[in-house]
């Protein structure tokens, strides 16, 4: 069956990690995997720039990591389970890191979750939101 990589583009505020994205983000995600080792976490946090220079990542990917711009990392082939190794290295939780990708601060995001989470109403499709 012909794969349809385009179908996901209609999802608002969502980046689907495809086999193609996996190629694009390979070095970025490999860097993240290296942070599963405590020693590497320490080396990375001690000198981020030179640790990143050990990986064949694009300048955009490195910049996104340095500025903790998770949305930009997603746009450049990162996947959130890989990227979690970056915020785990700093002791941050998923909620703390994930909320930075939204237009809320962490308190607002937590309040939304406690109130039952983000409603799917209005978030089903870009067409519905006139973003298409």
């Amino acid at each position, binding site marked *: 069956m012909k794969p349809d990589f385009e179908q996901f583009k209609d*999802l608002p505020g969502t980046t689907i990690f495809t086999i193609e994205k996996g190629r694009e983000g390979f070095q970025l995600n490999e860097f993240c995997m290296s942070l599963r080792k405590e020693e590497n976490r320490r080396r990375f946090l001690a000198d981020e720039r030179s640790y990143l220079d050990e990986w064949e990542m694009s300048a955009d990917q490195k910049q996104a990591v340095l500025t903790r711009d998770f949305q930009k990392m997603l746009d450049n082939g990162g996947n959130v389970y890989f990227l979690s190794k970056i915020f785990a290295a700093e002791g941050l939780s998923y909620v703390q890191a*994930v909320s930075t990708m939204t237009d809320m601060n962490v308190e607002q995001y937590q309040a939304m*979750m406690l109130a039952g989470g983000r409603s799917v109403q209005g978030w089903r*499709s870009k067409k519905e939101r006139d973003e298409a």
Partner: protein
Amino acid sequence: MAKITAGIATSHVPAVGAAIDMARTDDDYWKPMFQGYEFSKSWIKTNNPDVAIIVYNDHASYFGMEIMPTFAIGVAESFEVCDEGYGPRPVPSVEGAPELATHLAASLILDDFDLTVLNVLEVDHGLTVPLSLMYGTPDKWPSKVIPLAVNVVMYPQPSGERCLSLGKAIRRAVEEFDEDLNVQVWGTGGMSHQIQGARAGLINLPWDQKFMDDLIDQPEVLQYKPHLEYMREAGSEGVELIMWLIMRGALGDKVDEVHRFNHVPASNTSVGHLILTPKEGDA
């Protein structure tokens, strides 16, 4: 003859593991969620399996992108616990069931499931959080485990049909194993959640509950739900729910609902939990 006696479905949120490990299960935030598992913890005391086949996904913890299997089965004597970036969870390592696992792997490959066979595997919260939810904090897990890792992270994930068929093939394979064993199949992950992008925090409880209804009553229809619908309605990470179809396929045509629970939220996630048993007398 080995027999599949029950199926368990549960979300496997990492923060739930952290709450257990830090003894925060009585906190106001966590208490209502853990209460939903109280029934299950006493139920499993009298219904403990010899072996739990735990269908889960790795979250960039053991597999990276160098090698990404669609379905992988662990046949080792034991499985260590991954360091997911915060240090390994302080839980016991997981004991395997190599005899049943090699039988199962071989049987499934002969049935044209193209499994990857793992003689070494470290397991992450996807597998250990369900153990913690069902068993609490023992020194040693009370059942042996066969890990069945499914790619749900990278599109294309296996289809719903493929997952349900795999479950059915697991049922046949277990029943062909010569030793008398009480076997459960656990399906983990989900329910609705999205942990990335501007749409992060999406929860769709009515959809989750309908998914549970369909899983119980009409999995044959549910299997055709496209991945795009999971992602649209239940968030990008909601697609993990295809793993529940594998569990359901292993239970036969009709099931009885022993326990059902929903809770929102645990961290970013809608928590869902089921205990199902094959209907008496059903083939």
